């Protein structure tokens, strides 16, 4: 996975130290770790706990509370599909069914080849032009099955 670094305890510690002086530094540190490594490695817990002088339980508790923080690696491309009310009204659940029936992709899972992860989200702030998805950081609106097929094909290429 070229877009993320391999786990590196020294680097993690360096990052934590750099942000440690902020008020409420834990979330910014966790975001930085995830942006760098793609997920938050179990081994990061004691590194961060040490730097911030917190118990490991506090760090683990915070990581587990927030849906954004992942404890394992994800697919090379992450697609986030909005399933909130405004997107429901324009058929986002059809897209979920289409992913499963046509592509064998379950929302909430990573494909077995590790290429693709599809996750549910609740609102991307594009509610006038739904259904909405986010492919990595690129938003797409008025998504239909044709566009979805193209995006899946691209991610699997």
């Amino acid at each position, binding site marked *: 996975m070229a877009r993320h670094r391999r786990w590196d305890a020294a680097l993690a510690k360096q990052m934590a130290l750099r942000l440690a002086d*902020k*008020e*409420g*530094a*834990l*979330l*910014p540190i*966790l*975001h930085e770790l995830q942006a760098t490594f793609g997920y938050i490695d179990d081994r990061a817990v004691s590194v961060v706990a040490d730097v*911030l002088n917190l118990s490991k339980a*506090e760090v683990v*508790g*915070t990581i587990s*509370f*927030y*849906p*954004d*923080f992942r404890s394992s690696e994800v697919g090379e491309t992450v697609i986030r599909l909005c399933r*909130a*009310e*405004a*997107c*429901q*009204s*324009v058929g986002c659940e059809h897209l979920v069914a289409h992913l499963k029936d046509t592509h064998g992709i379950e929302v909430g899972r990573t494909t077995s080849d590790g290429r693709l992860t599809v996750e549910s*989200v*609740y*609102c*991307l*702030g*594009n*509610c*006038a*032009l*739904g259904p*909405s998805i*986010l492919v990595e*950081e*690129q*938003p*797409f*609106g*008025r998504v239909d099955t044709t566009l979805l097929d193209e995006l899946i094909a691209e991610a699997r290429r």
Partner: protein
Amino acid sequence: MSIRLYIPLDTSARAVGADRVAKAVVAAAADRGVDIDLVRNGSRGLYWLEPLVEVETSAGRIAYGPVTPRDVAGLIDAGFLTGADHPLRIGNIESHPDFARETRLTFRRVGLIDPLSLPDFEAHRGLNGLRKALALAPIEIIDQVIRSGLRGRGGAGFPTGIKWKTVAETRAERKYVVCNVDEGDSGTFADRMVLEGDPFMLIEGMIIAGLAVGADKGYLYVRSEYIDAFRVLEKAIAIATDAGLLGRSVMGSGKTFELEARLGAGAYICGEEMSLIESLEGKRGVVRAKPPLPAHAGLFGMPTVVNNVQSLTAVPYILGEGPEAYEKFGQGRSRGTLIVQLTGNVKRGGLFELPFGISIREVVEGIGKGTRSGRPIRAVQVGGPLGAYFPESLFDTPLDYEAMAARGGMLGHGGIVVFDDTVDLASQARFAFAFCAHESCGKCTPCRLGAVRGRELMDRIIERGAGPVETEMLQDLTTVMTDASLCALGGLTPLPVMSAFKHFPEDFQRAKALRSAAE
């Protein structure tokens, strides 16, 4: 001389191809040796016209839309860089009937200016409010905000000036201003549009809040789904700091105000102010019981103003133009403008700033022009996932705090989601419980367990229909959730559920009807 063009960097505009259009325009102009100056602006809010391209011509700004990359060559050849005619030509967007009927106070610059140009901001009345505030005593600033009648736009509608007064009167070594940019409600995006379209206005509002209450540090808590908007905001903060707007001496006044933007991490509950404060402190976003109020002991135990983006961004207008100029709009105890976000299955969705009091019907039919699917409208949900579902018979309800409450609904953050006649309100009620179960912070039982029980109950009702037993269970469960939940997530989930049940009872009997038809 180069020709100035505007193509939004707004997330929704990008979601339908604004980046590709921008690229095509740049390439086509280069091909033809035309010198252009491309500004990535905010959106004008008429989302069905995105990607909207505006060209500055001798006859003013001329808009074209919706533009696809394939249209670009044809547009250039037709002479759109000088405002020439073309099937996609709209003319001056501010004369468009749906724009012209708006009353833009807060959103007057969004889409108009270059979001990251301070000179552009100042040329359009930016900083007028702050300049006036710097010449006033804190209590005078607060007095103006109270006189404007401004109520919090995050959902609860609490008077903003009164909140500020409490913080101002609380003695402490440090105080904070926190802007709630969690905007988790489905059907809303006004806060995002401010970040992407006029971030200096929000910064101006926060500085004024800081001066009023005596805080010298502010935080903005931005949901992580808004990563692009977050980056625009961070740039704006850096520019404002370099320009001396933020920092040790705000505009040379000797007063300190610093700002920092932080990212949330995917939890809806972190929009609740106590959960948000916990999250900013680096903890799990578990809701803290009130009292103490954040105004007395909030972030890091210090007196804290927590306000929604739309509350803070109304303030520069109020200070700059005077509280009367704001207060004269609206009706009853809902003063000023409402930021309507029209969404879902609607032909013409977008953001419309309107005086309080316009009816739901005028919005969904008059502006929205019905559903995108072309089928009849069956329901709207107003006020986000915790707001009520209304049937057509309630569409004449005026959009103001009291009128909505009188009909068992709420305005929330101003989002309206339109559904056509294929919607099943029993499924929507199930979703409301499922969402609550998914997002519950886990602190109190009525919410944590009640929502799971409610979801199971709705499964049963969807499968078998609601008999007397199920009906009573649903009523009991929602009563307990309403009465005994610590915060409005558990406390208001019954609103979408029971409004659906009340106004669309047939959907809760569908299984039974099907069964008796089969017999």
